[in-house]
């Protein structure tokens, strides 16, 4: 992973980068790190999605970067603004883990898989292909997307660094 020119994406946040800069988000647990990439214009986008659907939102000022169904259209809009071509965009995703195992368990504990599901649904609905993913499991991930190559680096405590 490169250290220079990194744009940080916080929890329930999204951002775009181009010109060789990288996007990075740390400590993904049940959250999903979704990335979009235009390989010709080398424009990259990343969202740190926390919850599956904005239908459950009770906040006054909706943070659209937080929910799968609202974050993806906004990320797409930001990338088109930078000059990305929608037809070339490819998606990669990581995260959506189940950090803690419980017998029985209530629904909020399954939030990781639900985040993944709903992220995929939103992408399919918009016709953006998912080229690779590293989701599920029971471990945390830090991800970094290079706008130079479109490679998504995934670091975890147990498995080291993986490229997808």
């Amino acid at each position: 992973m490169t250290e220079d020119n990194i744009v940080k994406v916080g929890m329930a946040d999204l951002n775009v980068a181009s010109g060789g800069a990288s996007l990075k988000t740390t400590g993904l647990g049940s959250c999903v790190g979704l990335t979009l990439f235009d390989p010709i214009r080398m424009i990259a986008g990343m969202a740190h999605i926390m919850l599956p659907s904005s239908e459950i939102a009770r906040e006054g000022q909706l943070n659209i970067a937080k929910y799968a169904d609202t974050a993806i259209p906004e990320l797409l809009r930001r990338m088109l603004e930078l000059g990305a071509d929608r037809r070339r965009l490819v998606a990669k995703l990581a995260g959506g883990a189940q950090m803690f195992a419980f017998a029985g368990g209530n629904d909020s504990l399954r939030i990781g898989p639900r985040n993944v599901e709903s992220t995929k649904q939103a992408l399919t609905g918009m016709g953006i292909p998912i080229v690779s993913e590293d989701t599920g499991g029971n471990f945390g991930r830090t991800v970094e997307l290079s706008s130079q190559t479109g490679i998504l680096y995934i670091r975890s405590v147990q498995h080291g660094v993986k490229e997808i």
Partner: protein
Amino acid sequence: MELFNHNPDFKMDVLREVGNIGAGHAATALSRLLDKPVDMSVPTVSFVPFERIADRVGGSEEVVAAIFLRVDGDAPGNMFFLMSRKQAARVLHVLLGIEASEKDSYSELELSALCEIGNILAGSYLSSLADLTGLAMSPSVPSIAVDMAGAVLSYGVLQFGTMGDEALLIDTTFLKGEQEAEGHFFFIPDPQSFERMFVSLGVPLE
């Protein structure tokens, strides 16, 4: 949260005392387990942005041993007991006589021992709160993860996720000897639990 618009300082003080009593009992339990004096800090109670929730324990990517319990009952919430790997190794050494170095993987026995510690501490924290408030609060079976702090703690703020971008965190640090952090106790009551706690403690809501 609107509940905190009126008289916020007093309400925060009440929560600090709640944390103080709960963690005080938990510290006593830990001290008995380890057969060593365990001191604790005055709890900090504050609204913490999700992004900064892991800062208290060294940042989002810092690897911690985290024991998580879901609190059920009248005032539901999430509870974490967090230790550095170094501290987890020390606790295992004292309790089991295992010569465990700082490491990434733990045996079933080690994980189960750490889980049990979390269970005992959370139990004493919650039973003292239940005595104080008269509310029923019972912990779920504990679960443990040794992983990035950001990844484990984001689990505990989901209930706040639909309401905004920050969570109310009651954080108590356990100290040992020369102010070295022994561990952190995080109690994150669900948003709707605060009103019930205040009512049962006779705190005027408005």
